[in-house]
């Protein structure tokens, strides 16, 4: 499987991957983060991917740092440097080191000879020993071992000591004692490394200027901010990995931006529901009453919300649902990534339904698509799903600084106020429909002239109960037309067809970076391909045009059953024979090698 040809030979300055193998709950993540942040501060494109277990303490966890001057920071499959700090996974970890690469280990204990590879250089740093000498108490010793390890890596990777020292100063502002011990541990590792080995390694960092104007941010935080900016006031949720941090961030930013400075009272309400059925119920209730309301969840939550999603669709109630996708089916792997809820969302609920989906590919898009989702939900009076995933949602990404257009005005859709109602002869909930097949709604608490009875049972265009075929169909058929009308408002796909190739690669969401890198790699092998990243459903003309313009379409996605391809098959005129799949659904973020391997196989077949 390991695609060695990609790893060697190449200059490794600002172009390498490091993997840190740790144990969950030992404090390694903040040390790892420190390293990633300092590379970012040095102006070098970088990514950090947390592969953590669905557990709180004691199980294996990894952190992968990819550094690439050209911005190719999708996950790497093999590593120039392995930091093997977890005996449990040692054998597995060692196997992932590139030939000619390095392994750093804690030389407080001897290496198991069986696990030593000829083509890898071993760098022993007696971390435990050093920290036991230097620090008191088991807790501090364990925590500081991670920092000492970071110190050694700083030396090995040529990270600027001043940059990282500055980070520590920022992090421990006002906590002098902590700053000092962290600093000390960092030095400890650093000094050992510089005095025992010849540094830096071939794979190392040199300062660049490629991250200016960028920030590090995760998609959940960005999405939460998007909701704050979109004017969401009611949020209802039930905790579930990997969506929890979205709501945490929403609550945090609301507390910061939405507490009335005069009264100290909140212009928002976050409801931790008793389950996901309640969460979506609260969202529907609040949206019906006129608030911008949303929930965030993941696969199992989507399953539980099915019935009420169907009600939202049929009774035409706005709702925004962030689905931060993890690995299914069932509980699956809650801390791993897939895009496998596409169909469960697109056709959610029994009976005939079709929903609106958005596919952000980065934290910046999570931010931008939040207001888009609310605008669409309210304009079209229907549930809208933002299908993010664990990789986007929980990992820190280098992102252009978030931008907001202060002239933005929320699209609240067709809502009649008391004055407008007075001018009508009579108000009917589901007619007349506008050119996009949307009828005006009214809100409770405004005027009795707009009163109507919302129901999930068969209803007429007036909103009255019916069991007559023609009356029922009048509403249901309009819903289908309405869904079609959404297409024009879906963010256009990102297309790069300058290669004018007969091969088009189509993808979505967090697969983007890996696919773009793969296209470059394929190009080096004289395989040229055009590119389209789809950003939402229903599909608009640009999506169709791309499919039409290419002889072979390869859809790259992370699920077993090619769900995006399925949606394209069903919802565009493309002949299904034209569509091929590259699927990677083991749960790790996508690598360019996964894509190259898959496409090569298709082309060779």
């Amino acid at each position: 499987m390991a695609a060695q040809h990609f790893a060697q030979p190449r200059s490794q300055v600002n172009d390498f991957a490091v993997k840190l193998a740790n144990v969950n709950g030992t404090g390694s993540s903040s040390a790892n983060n420190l390293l990633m942040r300092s590379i970012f501060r040095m102006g070098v494109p970088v990514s950090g991917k947390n592969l953590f277990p669905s557990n709180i303490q004691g199980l294996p966890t990894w952190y992968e740092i990819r550094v690439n001057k050209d911005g190719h920071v999708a996950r790497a499959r093999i590593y120039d440097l392995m930091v093997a700090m977890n005996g449990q996974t040692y054998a597995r970890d060692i196997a992932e080191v590139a030939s000619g690469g390095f392994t750093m280990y804690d030389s407080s204990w001897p290496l198991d000879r069986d696990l030593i590879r000829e083509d890898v250089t071993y760098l022993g740093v007696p971390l435990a020993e050093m920290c036991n000498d230097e620090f008191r108490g088991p807790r501090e010793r364990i925590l500081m071992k991670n920092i000492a390890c970071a110190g050694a890596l700083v030396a090995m990777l040529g990270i600027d000591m001043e940059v990282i020292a500055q980070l520590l100063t920022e992090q421990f502002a006002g906590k002098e004692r902590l700053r000092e011990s962290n600093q000390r541990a960092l030095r400890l590792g650093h000094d050992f490394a510089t005095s025992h080995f010849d540094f830096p390694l071939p794979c190392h960092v040199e300062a660049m200027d490629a991250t200016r104007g960028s920030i590090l941010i995760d998609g959940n935080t960005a999405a939460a901010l998007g909701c704050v900016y979109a004017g969401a006031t009611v949020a209802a949720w039930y905790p579930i990995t990997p969506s929890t941090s979205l709501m945490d961030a929403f609550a945090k930013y609301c507390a910061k931006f939405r507490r009335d400075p005069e009264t100290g009272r909140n212009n928002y309400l976050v409801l931790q529901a008793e389950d996901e059925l309640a969460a979506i119920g609260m969202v529907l209730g609040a949206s019906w009453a006129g608030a911008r309301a949303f929930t965030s969840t993941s696969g199992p939550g989507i399953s539980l919300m099915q019935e009420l999603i169907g009600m939202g669709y049929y009774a035409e109630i706005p709702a925004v649902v962030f689905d931060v996708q993890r690995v299914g089916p069932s509980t699956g792997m809650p801390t791993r990534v897939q895009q496998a809820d596409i169909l469960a969302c697109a056709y959610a609920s029994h009976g005939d339904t079709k929903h609106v989906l958005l596919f952000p590919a980065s934290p910046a898009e999570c931010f931008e698509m939040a207001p888009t989702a609310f605008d669409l939900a309210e304009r079209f009076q229907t549930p809208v799903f933002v299908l993010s995933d664990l990789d986007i949602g929980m990992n820190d990404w280098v992102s252009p600084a978030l931008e907001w257009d202060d002239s933005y005005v929320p699209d609240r859709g067709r809502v009649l106020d008391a004055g407008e109602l007075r001018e009508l002869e009579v108000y009917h909930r589901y007619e007349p429909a506008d050119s996009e097949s949307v009828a005006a709604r009214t809100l409770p608490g405004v005027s009795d002239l707009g009163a109507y009875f919302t129901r999930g049972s068969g209803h007429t265009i007036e909103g009255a109960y019916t069991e007559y075929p023609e009356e029922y169909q009048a509403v249901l058929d309009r819903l289908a037309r309405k869904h079609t009308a959404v297409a024009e408002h879906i963010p256009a796909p990102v297309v790069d067809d300058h290669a004018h190739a007969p091969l088009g690669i189509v993808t979505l969401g967090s697969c983007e970076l890996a696919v773009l890198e793969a296209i470059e790699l394929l190009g080096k092998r004289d395989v040229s391909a055009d590119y389209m990243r789809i950003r939402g459903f229903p599909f608009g003309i640009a999506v169709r045009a791309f499919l039409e313009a290419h002889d072979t379409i390869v859809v790259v996605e992370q699920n077993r059953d090619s769900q995006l391809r399925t949606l394209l098959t069903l919802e565009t005129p493309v002949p299904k024979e034209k569509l091929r799949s590259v699927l990677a659904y083991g749960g790790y973020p996508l690598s360019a090698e996964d894509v190259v391997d898959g496409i090569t196989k298709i082309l060779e077949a």
Partner: protein
Amino acid sequence: MPSIVKPLVTHPGLERNALGLTIRDYEGGMSTLCAGCGHDSVTAAITHALWESDTPPHMIAKLSGIGCSAKTAAYFARGAHGFNGCHGRMPPIATGASAANRDLLCIGISGDGDSLSIGLGHLAHLVRRNVRMVYVIENNGVYGLTKGQFSASADVGSTTKRGEANHLQPIDPMFLGLSVGATFLARGFSGDKRQLVPIFRAAMAHRGLAIIDVISPCVTFNDHEGSTKSYLFTRQHDVQMTVTDFVPPAEEITGIIPDQGVVSIPMHDGATLRFRSVPDGYDPTDRLAVIEHLMSAKGRGEIVTGLLYVDEQSSDLHELGNTTDKPLTQVPYEKLCPGSAALAGVGFR
């Protein structure tokens, strides 16, 4: 046509409330329930209470799940918005509506199936959040709309029409409510509108969630001999614990119930809730004593009615959430959006 529009006849002689509205203005569509269904009497009592309380119809939000009971939300207050949701899911939908617009008078109509089976978890958590709303359980011991299966409130030994007896312990929403911290609990009987109206009025003024369990016989599937939720059985076993009188803020207290032995509870909006115990010493503010009373009455096979428990001190959803006084739906967007400048500090730089 399945949906029946009630003819709008105005009776010039009808009494008008402070808003100039007659009771007709608080009515809704024509009922499609069985003739004699208890639920229709509950509708009548709610209609009356709404009229009496001078509530502007458009400030009412009617919420329900699915069931014969749930349908009745369409049969009162035609000037109000209604939300006939999914089976058992009314509590979260009401929570959302109330969260968005705290000025709405939310009236939830549910059934024993809707609230005590599929929706029980939601009801318990609605209690925990103390969402300010009136929550009516039209309790008939059966699933009416699906044609007469036992519900979770069916008493042990109660029989179906065909004579099969229920063996499972009933869930009593009053005990359930007490166990999870409800702040207003009452029980009524659809056959006794005089008792129901002041209870509904007090419920509307309550600071938090008011649960009213109304025994509301199902004439089609559960009104036979052997049924403990029949008109006859309820009439025979009804024991009133309190007589209640509700005095709105502006009004002088000149009680409907004789003053003797009357206790007054000030409500958060300035109204006064007055009650007189029927068995001497029943105190609806003493939770433990209430439980004691209800348990021993249950032991005696009595159906206890009246205002059973009230706690006017606990905070409601919005107080607990420290939300602004203005309904969230009315906070202008400018106040909600932090603006581009605030993004300067966002993310790690």
